[in-house]
C-alpha cells in the first residue's frame, strides 16, 4: 500500500529518502530516528539508512520488526520493496540471541574463597549459533564453554562484543556496571550570576542515556551539533549518575573549558576536580584527562602507564568528549572499561577511518541525535550562512601555479595574494562582530595577523597566552583573531559569529564540521562561514568535498566569484 503524499521513499538497498516538504515529515523523522541512521540532510531529501547496527539499537530499545514495518508502511510514498520486511525481521531477530549477564557466583572452594574472580556469562538461545561459536578458534581465546553458554573475564567484555559484532551477531549486554564511588553533583542554574537552563533536547539526551537504570542502559553516544551544548549534556549526565567520573577530551584547552563549565554550572567544589594531562597528574572524584595522555607510552611495545593508573580508579562514569576523535589505540583500552557507564559526546560521528561501528560497540549505541538544521530552526544554535568565494589568481601567480609541482600548487593556491584583500573586505563588512580568520599555513597567518592588526594563535602559542586571548575575545575586548588548526578543536568562543577560512587540510569533513562549529553558538545574530578558494586550482576540488559535506548536513551553501 502506498501513500502518494507519504514523506518516505523506501529503497531496496535499505536506504530511505525523507522528503522534508511532504506532509507528516516530522512524524516520519521521529519514527525513523528509532531504527535508522541519518546519513545526509541536504535541502530537500534527507537520507536515512537502516543498518544492522541501527536495527539492533532499535531492538535494544524495545522496537519489534513489526513496529518498523508498520512505520515504513505508514509513511512510505511508494510500495515498500518486498524484501525489506524480511531483512528487517531477520536482522532484528539476531539481537537477543546472545545475552551477556553476570556469571553466577562460583561454588565455594579453596580457590574461589582466596580470590573470587568475577566473570560474565554469555548465553546463547540459538543452538546452531552456539555450535558455531564453540567451533570458532579465535573466540576460544576469550570464551570458555560452560553450563548456560560461555564464560569470559570482565576485562574481555569489550573485545568479545567487538568480535561477535564482526561476525554479525550483536550482544545484548545486561551485565551489571560498576557503580563506582559516590560523587553527588547537582546542576546550578544560577550559573554563578549568568542564569541558564537545560534545554528540552538536552534533557531528552540525558534521559535516553541514563535510561532509568535498566539493564542495557547507561552507555551510549549522544550526537549533537557543535554549539548545542554537549558539555552541558555531559554534566547533566554526571548529575544524574552521581558517581565518580573520568572525562576524556581532546586537548588541554578543552580540559580547562570543562573545568570552567563544571565550576560555573554545577555545585561541585573546585577541590573535587582534577586535571590529568601532561602538565598535571591529579586524580580526583571528577578527573579530566586528554586522549593523548591516555594513550601515551614510552615506546610502541610498552604498556600505557597512565591508562593503568586511571583504569584502577573506581569510576562510575566515563565521558568521552568528541568521541569521533577517539584514537584507534584507545579502542583497546576503552574495551577494558566496559564495566563502567560510558557516555560518548560528538557532533559528527563520521570518521575518516570508517570505524563508526567500533565506537558504537565500545562506547555504546547511539542514544540520541537531532539534525543540525532542527536545532537551528528552533533557535538553539545560530543560523549559519555558508558562502564559498572563488577568487582569481593574479597572472604571475597563475603562471607560477601552472608550472609548479603538484604539492607546491596546493600552497600557491592557498597563499593567493588576492585572498588578503577579500579578507580585509569581509572584516570591514562585519566590523564589530566576533571574527575568526582560520588557516593552515603559519607564515600566511602571520602576514594576515600583521595586516589585520589581530592577534595570532597557533600551536606554538603558550597555553597561558592562548587562554588570555580567548578570554579577551569572549569578553569582547578583541573582536578579531587569526587562528591555526588549534581552532578546530573544542574551544568555546560563544561570540564568534564570522569565520573566514583561508586555507585548510585536504578536504577533511571533520575539519569542516569543527570549523563551522566555531560560529554556531547561539547568539542574537546570524553566523557566517566564508571559505576562500582560488579559482582554477586544486582548492576547488578540496572545496567541493567539504562543500558536499556541509550541504549534506543541510546547510545553505552559496558560491560566488570575487570580481576584482
Amino acid at each position: 500500500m502506498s501513500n502518494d503524499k507519504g514523506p518516505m521513499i523506501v529503497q531496496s538497498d535499505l536506504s530511505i529518502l525523507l522528503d522534508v516538504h511532504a506532509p507528516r515529515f516530522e512524524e516520519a523523522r521521529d519514527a525513523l530516528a528509532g531504527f535508522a541512521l541519518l546519513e545526509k540532510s541536504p535541502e530537500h531529501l534527507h537520507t536515512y539508512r537502516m543498518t544492522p547496527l541501527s536495527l539492533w539499537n532499535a531492538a535494544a530499545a524495545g522496537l519489534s520488526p513489526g513496529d518498523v514495518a508498520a512505520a515504513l508502511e505508514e509513511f512510505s510514498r511508494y510500495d515498500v520493496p518486498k524484501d525489506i520486511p524480511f531483512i528487517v525481521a531477520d536482522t532484528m531477530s539476531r539481537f537477543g540471541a546472545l545475552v551477556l549477564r553476570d556469571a553466577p557466583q562460583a561454588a565455594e572452594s579453596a580457590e574461589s574463597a582466596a580470590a573470587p574472580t568475577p566473570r560474565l556469562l554469555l548465553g546463547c538461545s540459538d543452538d546452531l549459533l552456539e555450535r558455531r561459536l564453540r567451533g570458532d578458534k579465535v573466540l576460544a581465546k576469550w570464551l570458555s564453554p560452560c553450563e548456560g553458554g560461555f564464560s569470559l573475564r570482565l576485562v574481555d567484555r569489550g573485545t568479545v562484543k567487538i568480535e561477535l559484532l564482526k561476525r554479525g551477531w550483536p550482544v545484548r549486554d545486561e551485565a551489571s556496571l560498576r557503580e563506582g564511588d559516590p560523587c553527588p553533583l547537582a546542576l546550578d542554574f544560577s550559573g554563578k550570576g549568568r542564569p541558564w537552563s537545560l534545554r528540552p533536547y538536552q534533557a531528552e539526551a540525558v534521559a535516553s542515556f541514563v535510561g532509568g537504570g535498566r539493564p542495557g542502559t547507561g552507555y551510549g553516544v549522544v550526537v549533537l551539533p557543535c554549539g548545542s551544548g554537549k558539555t552541558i549534556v555531559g554534566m547533566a549526565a554526571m548529575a544524574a549518575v552521581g558517581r565518580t567520573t573520568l572525562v576524556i577530551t581532546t586537548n588541554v584547552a578543552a580540559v580547562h573549558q570543562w573545568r570552567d563549565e563544571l565550576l560555573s554550572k554545577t555545585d561541585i567544589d573546585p577541590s573535587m576536580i582534577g586535571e590529568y594531562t601532561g602538565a598535571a597528574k591529579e586524580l580526583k572524584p571528577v578527573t579530566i584527562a586528554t586522549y593523548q595522555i591516555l594513550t601515551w607510552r614510552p615506546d610502541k611495545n610498552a604498556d600505557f602507564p597512565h591508562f593503568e593508573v586511571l583504569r584502577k580508579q573506581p569510576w562510575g562514569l566515563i565521558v568521552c568528549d568528541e568521541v569521533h576523535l577517539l584514537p584507534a589505540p584507545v579502542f583497546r583500552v576503552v574495551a577494558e572499561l566496559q564495566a563502567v557507564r560510558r557516555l560518548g559526546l560528538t557532533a559528527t560521528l563520521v570518521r575518516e577511518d570508517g570505524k563508526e561501528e567500533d565506537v558504537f560497540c565500545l562506547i555504546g549505541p547511539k542514544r540520541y541525535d537531532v539534525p543540525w538544521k532542527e536545532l537551528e530552526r528552533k533557535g538553539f544554535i545560530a543560523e549559519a550562512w555558508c558562502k564559498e568565494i572563488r577568487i582569481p589568481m593574479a597572472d604571475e601567480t597563475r603562471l607560477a601555479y601552472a608550472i609548479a609541482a603538484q604539492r607546491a600548487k596546493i600552497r600557491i593556491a592557498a597563499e593567493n595574494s588576492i585572498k588578503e584583500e577579500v579578507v580585509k573586505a569581509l572584516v570591514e563588512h562585519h566590523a564589530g562582530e566576533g571574527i575568526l580568520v582560520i588557516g593552515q599555513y603559519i607564515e600566511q597567518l602571520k602576514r594576515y595577523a600583521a595586516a589585520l592588526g589581530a592577534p595570532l594563535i597557533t600551536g606554538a602559542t603558550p597555553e597561558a597566552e592562548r587562554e588570555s586571548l580567548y578570554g579577551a575575545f569572549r569578553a569582547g575586548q578583541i573582536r578579531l583573531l587569526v587562528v591555526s588548526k588549534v581552532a578546530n578543536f573544542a574551544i568555546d568562543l560563544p561570540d564568534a559569529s564570522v569565520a573566514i577560512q583561508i586555507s585548510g587540510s585536504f578536504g577533511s569533513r571533520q575539519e569542516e564540521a569543527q570549523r563551522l562549529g566555531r560560529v554556531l553558538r547561539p547568539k542574537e545574530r546570524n553566523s557566517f562561514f566564508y571559505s576562500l578558494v582560488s579559482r582554477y586550482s586544486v582548492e576547488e576540488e578540496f572545496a567541493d568535498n567539504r562543500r558536499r559535506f556541509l550541504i549534506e548536513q543541510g546547510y545553505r551553501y552559496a558560491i560566488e566569484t570575487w570580481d576584482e
Partner: protein
Amino acid sequence: MTERKMDATRLAQWREAMLAETSVSLRALASNYLGAAGEKLDKPKLVGAIAAMLDDPEAQRTAVAMMDRLDALIVGTVSLAGATSEAWLRDLLVGELSFHELEYRLANLGERLLLFATQDGRWAVNPHFDAAVRAGAARADILFGAAAEEEARIAAGTPPAGGAQGAEGAEALGGVRPRIMPIQELALVAYGLLRDCREPLLKDGRLAAKLRRRLAALCPGDPGAVGAVEAIVNALLAAGIASRDDEGVAVNFRAFAELLCAHREDLAFALAGMLSGRPGKTRSLAAAEACRPFLDRGFVFSCAGLRRFIRFMPGEAAGGPPGADAQAAPAPVPGVEAYADALERLGLVEREAGAFRCEPERALCPWRAASQEACASVDGSGAIHILPSASLRDIVELLDIGVLKSASGAWTIGLTRESARRAFTAGKTVEDIGRMLERMSGRSLPQAIAFDLRMWEDEYEAIKLYRGYLLSVDAASARIIEQSGLLSRLPNEAIGEGLYYFGNVSGATIEKALADSGLPPPALRSSVRQAQARSHQKSASGEAKAPGQTALEHEPREAARGTEAPRSGDGSKAPAAKGHDAGLRAAFAYLAEGLPASGGGGSPALPAGELARMNLPPGLRKKLEERVRRKLIYTAGQLRAIVESEGGAGGRKALSADFGLSAKGLDFPGKLRVIQAALKATYSRLDIRWSSEGEIRSCALRPTSLRKTEKDYVLEGEDVSSGDPLSIRVGSMIQVSLRKGYLLGDE
C-alpha cells in the same frame, strides 16, 4: 471427446490414413484392438469401430499412462508442432534419442494408434487422444524440463527460484540478500557506463577491468551483472547501435535510448535477438510472452529442452513450413544455439548442473516507460536522487548529463565537471540542463549547482581542441569550393580566407568531394607554414613559379633534384602520403625526370620540334600546339598518328578539339552522349560553342548536371576560366566536344 469437438481436419486425415491401410494391417489392428475382424473386411466399419474404442476414456487413460518419457516427448512434440515430418521431428529431438530409436518409437506409437502418418508422410497425433495427450504429454516439464532437477526440487519442497528466499539466503551481515538486477536496469547501467567509457571492451569482447570494477560497485551482490552487461554491449555492436572505431566503441546513444524506451517487457528478448542475429520487435514481444510463464515459476530447462523451446517460440518454423517436403531434411534454423547462448549470457537462464534455471528477476521491468510526476531530487552537492516515479526516458536524460553513482536499490547520479562537459559536447547548454532538472525535481536548481554549471560551461568554451582536417586552398579553388556547394555537403566551418575546417569527415571523403568539383586531390601536409611558403612564394632557389603551374608542379622538380622523398622544411622526411597521394607523388617524380633542370614552362622539346617540322594547316597546327602545350603529346609517333587520323598533313580533316567525343549541328543525341560522357568522367571538360541572343559564344565548361525541361535539356556547369556558373540549352549548342581532364589542374 466426440468427433464434433476434435480437429475436423485431422480427424479426416486419420480416417483417411486408416482407410489407406492395407487390408492385412487394418485387419491386424482390428484384431488387436477389437478382437476378430470378421470374414468380410468392411474398412469404414472397422475404422468406425476403432474410433469408438478410442473414444473410451479408459482406453485413453491407459494409452497415455503407458507412455514412457521418451514416448511422451515424441507425442508431445508432435502435438505442439502439429503434423511434422520425421526429419523435422528428428531435428527437434536432437540429443534426446538416436536415429533408429526414433524410427522404432514412431512405428510403435503408430501401432499404438497414438500417432498416425498423414498422406503426405507427416506424423500427427491421433485426434481421439488430443485431450489426453495435452494433459499427459504435451506438458512443459516433459517437452522442455530438466526432469531430474525438477523432480528433485519438487521433492525437496523448495519454492521455485525467484520467490522470496528463506533465511538460508540471508547469510550476509544484517541479512541483506544479494540483489539480482533486471536486464532493464543493467541496460540503463550499461548506458551510463558507456557514456563515460570509450573503451568498454577488450579485443575478445569481454568487459575491460575498469568497467568490471565499476560494475561490482554499482551492482553489489549480483555476480551475473558483469556477464549481462558484456552481453548488452555486444548486442549493441551486433545491431549496429554501437561500432568499433579507432578510439574504442562509439555508441549511437539516441538509438540506444530508443531501444530502452521502445522495449519494456521485451527488452531482454530484444537484446537476445540482437545478440543472436534474430532482431525484431514482433519477435521479441512474442518471445517475452512465450517465456513469461516459464520465468515466473523459475522453470528449469534441460539443455536440449531449451533449444527445443526456442524452436517452438512464435515465429519459428518448429514443424517445418507448411507444405514442406515430408522427406526433406529441415534447413538448419539459424541462431537457435546463438539465442540460447544469448539467454544465458544475459542471465535470463542460469546454468546449473547441465540444466538451465530461469532467473525471473532478470526479466522484471521496474521502470515505467513514461511519467509526468516529479522524478528526481537535486541537492547542492550535485547528487541527483532518482525516485521510483521516474521513467526510463527520465533516467536516460539524467545519464546524458551525469555520472551513475549507485544503481542497486537506490539510483543516484552525480553531476560533475566531466559529465557536464560531455553534455555540452553533445549540444546541451546550461539552460537545457537547468530546465530539465527543474522540470524533473519540481524545484529551482540549487545555487551551487547553477554556479558550477555556468562555470563549467565557461571553461568549456574557453579552451577548445578540434580534431579533423584543415583545408587550405588558393583563391580560385576557394571560389569553386564555395560555389560548387561542397561546403553544404560536408560538415565544415570556414575559419579564414581559403581555410576550411572539416570535422567528423574522413580525408578520403574530402578528396572525393574536391574531385567531384573538379579540383585536384590535396596532398596531406604536416606543416601549415611550409605548405604556404612553397605554394605562393618564390622557391628557395629563387626560380619563379612558371605561369599556370601550381604548387604541386614544383614538387616533382624538388624531388627529382634530391632523388629522394620530399622533405619538410626542417629537413625531416615528410610523412608518407597514403594511397592516391603516394601514387601521385611517384608519378610526379617520374615525370620530373624528363623535365629540364630549369623547370621552366614552355613546350617539351621533342614534340615541339617535331611539330615545327610538319607542314600543317594553320588551324591544325594551332590545335596541335595547344595540345603540346597542355602536354598531351608524348612522342613524335603519337603526333604523327594524330595528324594522320585527322586527314594527314593536308589537314583534310579538321582536328577534333579533343582526342575523344564531339558532336555538332543537328546531332542532338550525339551532343547528349558527349555531355553524359563528360558528366560520368572525372576531370572532364566540355568545349562548347552555342548561340545565345543572336551571338555565338564559346567556353570551356566544367559540367555539373544535365536537366531535362519540357522541350529541351539544360546543361549546368561552371566556366573554367571565370568560375561563373553557366546554364546552356543543348538545343542552342552548335558544337560540343569532350576534353578529358588531366592531372595537373585547369589550364
